[in-house]
């Protein structure tokens, strides 16, 4: 076993890459991970208005400008995320397209009643997951002050709680499934201005939340795949780009829950989880050092200083240009953080970025670098200038001083955030929502919201899910993938094929047709592979294809057609030739093949025979069995 305790981030050793660690290492880190899988439901209209769902466009016809303010939760608290977003003072612009939004999305009209088609879909997926479905649905408002929803909250409701899916011989707990409206698509976010497109806003989606039951990066990806496929097998969710997104929750022992938001592809999950585990490990190592030094959140003084006048004369630096443009410069000394600022936290990422991220997001200072540190290698200022800043802050050379600059309000906000982040470092890993960056590291997005951001929706009454509705929805549920797989294996279908068909829409057709195979010439494996062949021009749903397949299989059992005929046929499968006509057809084809110039035929016996077979078969395909033709060919060539 590769003991993880040997790796010490404080020594600046290169971080282990994904693959370097096995199950045991993650276990000794105490890695825990859970998923929140979002999938759009396949409905024609949106969830709370009658706008069409699933129409995306790059065009817009009008714009509106809004701001968000935090409000109190139902329990009388302000949500930390909400307060953080309020500090950002964003001007939020919404782009409106005439075809995809109405006054509801603009937050200029109350909601219509919940789309019953969407609700039925959500209940059916909940039942497939074995969830306990609630009796009465209460629509809640989940606050989002980033502006991604113009109301400032997402309408969401719990449909079911406490289910499980089997995974590798154990159960992965499903905490809850909720139905919610989708948010806007972000167009840009620069400084204090953020722009959203509203076409996706209000589309119905389900969010499936698992317990933190996954303990390795690849388990997380596998379970995510299984959950997405389960919903897809139901035929009730949308597929395609952006139709499914997941948030991945990661923590290690002693760390905190961090939510990696909006991971677009399952492939990226393992590396993101691995890198986040590394980050938490580094942050805990830093905390331990701070504790040893007796540094606590309370002991860290607010000693930030306006050092604009010191930087004013700085030769040739971008800082000086900024000051000339009216920026203020703030310095925040961090006594006790000596030697820690450059600690690697993720690949190509150091502890300093934790501060820079906060400044970027909260103070909206987003031209990088936005923070420089007196003890790091960036030498923007001369040593004389650093010396004056150190004296202004009353600290020595080794004590890191963070310097930020921007318009006065932003610079002050930034200084405050740096101090806040430093204080959090004394506690360990702050609970955060983080974004997945292109290199599979994560960056700060916002403080992790808590239950305080939930508020009952006073615009809509609760919806009773009566027993008869539930019974109707439960009546013809498609079996979940694991049950399908089980059945296919019982039928004798090979493991890989069973795995593929279990998640494929053609499974329904298989289940419908399998009883017709009887002891005919086509095996269950044969049928499975026929159905999975994507080149076949035949529709794969039961109602559309049922009659064709039923007829074909009946003919097959009666011996009137060959299995190959089904494979090759576009229309009705051709009838198998009776023995005498089959022989005549072979002879004709063979004569033609033999008359053809021998050029290009391989010298060796076997390949040569196969090449000739390739010339003979097209004329016989589906009407003479391949085995028979091969036997005759053997006879003719020997």
């Amino acid at each position: 076993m590769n003991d993880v305790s040997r790796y010490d981030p404080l020594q600046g050793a290169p971080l282990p890459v994904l693959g370097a660690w096995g199950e045991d290492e993650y276990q000794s880190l105490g890695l825990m991970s859970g998923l929140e899988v979002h999938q759009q439901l396949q409905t024609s209209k949106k969830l709370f208005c009658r706008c069409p769902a699933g129409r995306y466009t790059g065009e817009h016809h009008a714009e509106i400008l809004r701001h968000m303010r935090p409000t109190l939760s139902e329990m009388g608290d302000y949500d930390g995320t909400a307060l953080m977003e309020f500090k950002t003072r964003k001007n939020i612009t919404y782009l409106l397209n005439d075809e995809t939004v109405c006054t509801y999305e603009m937050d200029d009209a109350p909601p219509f009643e919940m789309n019953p088609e969407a609700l039925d879909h959500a209940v059916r997926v909940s039942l497939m997951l074995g969830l306990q479905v609630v009796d009465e649905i209460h629509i809640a408002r989940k606050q989002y002050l980033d502006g991604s929803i113009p109301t400032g909250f997402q309408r969401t409701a719990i449909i079911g709680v406490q289910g499980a899916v089997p995974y590798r011989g154990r159960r992965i707990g499903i905490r809850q499934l909720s139905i919610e409206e989708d948010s806007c698509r972000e167009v840009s976010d620069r400084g204090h201005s953020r722009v959203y497109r509203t076409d996706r806003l209000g589309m119905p989606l389900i969010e499936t939340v698992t317990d933190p039951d996954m303990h390795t990066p690849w388990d997380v990806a596998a379970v995510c795949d299984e959950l997405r496929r389960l919903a897809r097998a139901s035929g009730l969710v949308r597929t395609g780009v952006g139709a499914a997104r997941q948030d991945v929750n990661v923590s290690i022992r002693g760390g905190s829950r961090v939510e990696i938001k909006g991971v677009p592809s399952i492939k990226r999950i393992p590396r993101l989880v691995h890198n986040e585990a590394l980050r938490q490990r580094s942050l805990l190592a830093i905390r331990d050092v701070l504790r040893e030094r007796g540094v606590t959140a309370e002991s860290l003084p607010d000693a930030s200083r306006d050092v604009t006048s010191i930087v004013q004369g700085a030769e040739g630096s971008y800082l000086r240009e900024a000051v000339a443009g009216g920026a203020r410069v703030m310095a925040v000394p961090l006594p006790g953080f000596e030697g820690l600022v450059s600690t690697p936290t993720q690949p190509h990422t150091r502890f300093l970025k934790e501060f820079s991220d906060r400044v970027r997001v909260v103070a909206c200072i987003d031209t990088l670098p936005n923070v420089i540190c007196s003890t790091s290698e960036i030498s923007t200022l001369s040593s004389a200038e650093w010396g004056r800043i150190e004296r202004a802050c009353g600290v020595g050379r080794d004590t890191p001083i963070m310097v930020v600059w921007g318009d006065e309000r932003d610079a002050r906000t930034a200084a405050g955030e740096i101090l806040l982040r430093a204080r959090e470092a004394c506690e360990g890993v702050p609970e955060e929502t983080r974004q997945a960056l292109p290199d599979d590291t994560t960056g700060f997005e916002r403080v992790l919201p808590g239950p305080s951001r939930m508020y009952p929706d006073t615009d809509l009454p609760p919806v009773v899910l009566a027993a008869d509705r539930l019974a109707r929805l439960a009546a013809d549920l498609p079996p979940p993938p694991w049950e399908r797989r089980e059945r296919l294996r019982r039928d004798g279908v090979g493991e890989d094929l069973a795995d593929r068909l279990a998640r494929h829409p053609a499974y329904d057709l298989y289940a419908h047709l399998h009883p017709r195979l009887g002891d005919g010439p086509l095996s269950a494996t044969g049928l499975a592979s026929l159905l999975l062949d994507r080149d076949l021009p035949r529709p794969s749903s039961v109602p559309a294809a049922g009659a064709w397949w039923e007829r074909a299989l009946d003919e097959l059992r009666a011996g009137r057609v060959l299995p190959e005929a089904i494979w090759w046929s576009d229309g009705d499968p051709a009838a198998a030739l009776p023995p005498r006509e089959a022989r005549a057809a072979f002879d004709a084809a063979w004569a033609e093949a033999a008359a053809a110039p021998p050029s290009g035929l391989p010298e060796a016996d076997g390949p040569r025979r196969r090449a000739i077979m390739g010339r003979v078969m097209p004329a016989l395909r589906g009407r003479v069995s391949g085995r028979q033709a091969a036997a005759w060919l053997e006879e003719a060539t020997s």
Partner: protein
Amino acid sequence: MSGNGNEDYKGYRDPALAVLKKHDALVWSDVTIRTDRGEFRGLILPRNEMADPEHVVLKMSTGYNIGLHVGGMQEITVHGRKVANYKIPEKAFPYSEGKPRVKLLGTGGTIASRLDYRTGAVIPAFSPGELYGSVPELADVCNLETEKLYGVFSENMGPEQWIGLAEAIGREIAAGVDGIVVGHGTDTMHHTAAILSFMVQGSPVPIVMVGSQRSSDRPSSDAAINLMNAARTAATSDLAEVMVCMFGPTSDQYGLLHQGTRVRKMHSSYRSTFRTLSDVPLGKVDQDGVTPFRNDYSRRRADRDVTVKAVFDDRVSLVYYYPGMKPDVIDSLVDHGYKGIIIAGTGLGHVNRPLYPALERAHKAGVSMFMTVQTLWGFVQMYVYETGREIMELGVVPAANMLPEVAYMKLGWALGQTQDPAEVARIMLTPIARDITEREPYNGYLVYQGGIPEVDQFLSEHWK
């Protein structure tokens, strides 16, 4: 429908109430409930009294609420109790020497608010401390004092509240405030704005009505911006008029200041619902200050002179005419002792011939009748068609371009002063605060239509 009157089981009625009592499961209890659909854990919340009596509401640890049917409940295990402490953070409103003194009079509405569990609705919070806790920017504008006169939804405002409000305004002016803000629900804000325009005349300071179209418990609420705009107008503007201050566009951009007698709520839900009809607004207000659109307004004065005539006779009705209306509608008003009728007629001010005898009878009974237009924009003109002339003969007086609701309020106010029909007519036809204007400007009627290329072009270039 009323609740059980018991705070311990707030909002619950039988059969849910009986089940909760049986298990000693009070609201705010942390419980596990076993039902035929599974086990659920959470806090029992109070129930909305309007909701059915068969479900129990649980708040789960995630913050979500769910409802469980009592019919399927097998067992409730109580683990503990956590009572919510719902309080808007209250901070002492800071006093700044030299800042204008603004009085906020509350009648209801949601400038700052909290949830009422019994009804599921939001109820307003109001003290200066609470307001400062939610809209601290107010302290940059003025020294704010507040008084909660009423706590009613705007549809429940009536003569008693109008009179009380007008008198309170008179008192505040005498007490020396620099401006008055009236918090009001939006549904009938224009009715109240109209009556205040008549009851309080010649005010030396701005009187600004304000509310919100999105309640203040929503992050996207227009309440805070409206309140700041109203406070700024009351504190600093030169407009000593009764005004409504609400969103101009639906974007968070600026508020419009509408004359109290020319304003009307024109959309059931838009933020920009209030519009000035047949005229241009008095001005606009944003964080940079107030910009008047016109010159002919009453200026702010240092004196404390104001005329308060707070009277109202509620034996007045507003009849919205429709084709085929039967005379008994008018007859029944007369028979029930109504003294005044405002008709919102079609087109230039018309009703059908079968109504004539009823109108004549009403006139003879001394009922004052005035014609307004249900087109809302434009003047009554009863000479153009013979019908109009006939109706005037019957004693119906054309009320120029008074809005129907404004005419209704003014008639109640006039009848509060005199029962003499000639005097009532004189009061009605004497313009007081632009309730009747002499001319309608070309840009007083703007209901542009989408789809027209130049209109859509405008919308694409300006925040809506």
